[in-house]
């Protein structure tokens, strides 16, 4: 009796599995109806807003949109696996032009959009900022449309500054002095906090590097992270965290951990991307929402040079069989009206006209809008080495950051990192 029940269950399971397999085959092969569009997006405020709007797009065009949404790392893994296999399951993809743009374009994963961006004068491609557009262009071909831009700004606590009788730091030396004083005056509060993870910190460190007059590579494309300027930048970033940072600082912090320390009242200064400002000003997330202030990055010897980059863009999968519909979606999602609306909700966009429009910055804290305006003028168009193997390069140039944070010899580390970075560059230019 028992055995026959077992056998029956086994048979039923086998039948189910086979039926499931067949069903998966039939739906996988056809990749849905011709009017279904598969859009892959990252977890981001931009995505939350666009998802609410998608029904409008579906109504207008009759195209059905299927959204798949992932965290940043999971998104990378998805692309690595699926694009490698040449899938047509992805039509529109949200990607990071500076992180994987070169790799994807070189591998032939991105469809050429050059004709499409020029096709609609009302949509106005020339309205997009030059720096971001350069980052989504590969070999003279447009492969993506930038949707989110970022500049590094200084987040600070007005109350702590006032109590210490200090002005908002204008230079790196001011920042070091202010961080020291506040840390000494307020037990349990750090003077400064920022990202500490080897890879994660590279983007925020880049603005320090430029402000000290350095860059990841020199004019000839050689590694230049052991110049006196670069060494001074590493030392400053490290000193700020090692000497004036939180107690028990870890070497794993990305923006979420660092932001948590700042918004819980644990630090006076914090340098971070402006696009994350809502985390600090939203009272439901932040204990310091009413006393947080924003300023341009303090000036180093070379001035205040923050990065000004497109952190995310939309591209079309070269293997997609619905490239025209995919373009329709991108055109809709990046229109002037949509960009204005999303920017007002707190996500800095890439359209000049929206930044020029008073409505475009009406919802921003005044000091933040001023800081962004200042950074876009002097900004540098990249926040990490411009190579194909970005993850590897980030780990190499991030090594001296970690050494500096933990109080080690960052100058020696910069010398050895420079050698490793040069090897990587030589390897790529072979």
């Amino acid at each position, binding site marked *: 009796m028992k055995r026959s029940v077992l056998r029956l269950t086994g048979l039923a399971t086998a039948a189910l599995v086979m039926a499931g397999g067949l069903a998966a085959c039939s739906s996988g092969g056809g990749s849905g109806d011709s009017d279904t569009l598969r859009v892959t997006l990252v977890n981001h405020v931009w995505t939350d807003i666009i998802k609410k709007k998608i029904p409008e797009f579906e109504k207008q065009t009759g195209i059905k949109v299927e959204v798949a949404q992932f965290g940043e790392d999971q998104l990378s893994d998805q692309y*690595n696996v699926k694009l*490698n296999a040449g899938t047509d399951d992805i039509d529109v993809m949200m990607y990071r032009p500076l992180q994987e743009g070169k790799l994807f374009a*070189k591998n*032939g994963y991105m469809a050429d959009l050059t004709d499409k961006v020029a096709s609609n004068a009302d949509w106005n491609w020339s309205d997009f900022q030059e720096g971001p557009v350069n980052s989504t262009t590969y070999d003279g071909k447009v492969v993506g449309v930038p949707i989110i831009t970022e500049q590094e700004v200084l987040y600070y606590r007005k109350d702590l500054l006032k109590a210490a009788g200090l002005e908002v730091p204008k230079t790196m030396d001011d920042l070091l002095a202010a961080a020291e004083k506040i840390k000494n005056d307020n037990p349990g509060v750090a003077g400064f906090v920022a990202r500490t993870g080897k890879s994660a910190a590279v983007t925020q460190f880049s603005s320090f590097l430029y402000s000290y007059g350095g860059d990841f590579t020199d004019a000839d494309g050689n590694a230049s992270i052991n110049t006196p300027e670069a060494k001074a930048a590493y030392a400053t970033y490290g000193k700020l965290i090692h000497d004036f940072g939180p107690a028990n*600082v*870890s070497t*794993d912090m990305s923006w979420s951990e660092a932001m948590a320390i700042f918004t819980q009242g644990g630090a006076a200064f914090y340098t971070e991307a402006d696009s994350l400002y809502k985390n600090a000003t939203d009272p439901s997330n932040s204990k310091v929402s009413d006393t947080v202030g924003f300023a341009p990055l303090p000036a180093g010897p070379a001035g205040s040079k923050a990065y000004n980059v497109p952190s995310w863009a939309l591209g079309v999968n070269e293997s997609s069989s619905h490239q025209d519909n995919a373009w329709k979606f991108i055109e809709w999602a990046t229109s002037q009206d949509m960009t204005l609306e999303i920017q007002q909700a707190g996500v800095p966009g890439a359209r000049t006209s929206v930044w020029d429009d008073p409505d475009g910055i009406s919802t921003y804290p005044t000091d933040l809008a001023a800081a962004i305006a200042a950074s876009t003028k002097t900004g540098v168009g990249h926040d990490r080495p411009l190579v194909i*193997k970005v*993850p590897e390069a980030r780990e190499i140039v991030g090594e001296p950051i970690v050494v500096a944070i933990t109080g080690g010899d960052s100058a020696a580390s910069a010398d050895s990192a420079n050698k490793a970075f040069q090897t990587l560059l030589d390897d790529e230019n072979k």
Partner: protein
Amino acid sequence: MSVTTGLAASRRKTFSDWANRHRKWLFASPAMIIVGLLIAIPLVWTIYLSLTNSEGSVRADHDFIGLGNYAAVFADFERFWPAVWRTFIFAGGVLIVELVLGMAIALLLWRPFRGERWVRVAILLPLVATPVAVGMMWKLIFDPNIGFANQLLGFFGIPAQPWLSGEYTALPTVMFMDIWQWTPMVVLILLAGLTSLSEEPDEAARIDGANAWQRFWYVTLPLLRATVVVAVLLRSIDALKTFDILYATKGKGGGAFHEVETLNVYAYGLSFDYNEYGVASAVLIIFFLLIIAIMWLITFRRKEKASK
């Protein structure tokens, strides 16, 4: 007409005879073929990739470079060899602790007692949690500033510890998490073995005047050897290829100093972060051979002992 049908019939008969004789192979063959393909295709593909300089995209052009990747990997004392040692320290360490602790708990649960069922359920709880969720939970507990672990230490006046973020404390901390999660499985296996033991040898030893430790060491443990080997096999395979807890707590590369980067984490980083498919495949093949060698050693030694 009749000749042909006769022929067909005899053919059918020979076939059914043959099928009858080989029916255990015949019925198992579809499953064996599928399982074979599921193992063989990825393995052959990985071996092939490990002999090429494939990087960036597996669809991109790549050259056959023979054993170049293997040579490069074996010469890599910065990431590869430390990852190998870490893999063994991690797997060996958790295995020993889990076996000792598992045995102790299993012995405690062996004899019936009041509330036994509740205790068993409580002990099994860590086992049913997803490893990634377990990693996230302990990451919060071990957070250097707001974590419960440091607050507890502070309550007793002990200074805060770096736990997961320290260069030398991270590996012991993730080992602790693995022990927390997987000891229950060892308990489960050993308890099953214990309950199936007959009482007589134990009683005989008791009458001969053996104390509790002697009875455990000279009677129970030898009888339990087969069960222990099963537990060792299952746990060592799992421990060697641990990934979720490490990734959930320390991310790609195993932290700033690669402090918890085992072979598995290293291979993952090579393929999904660096897109170096050739080198990653070579590492995975080496890893695969290592695991097979270890499993063979465990089972082979056992067979040898049994035949003596």
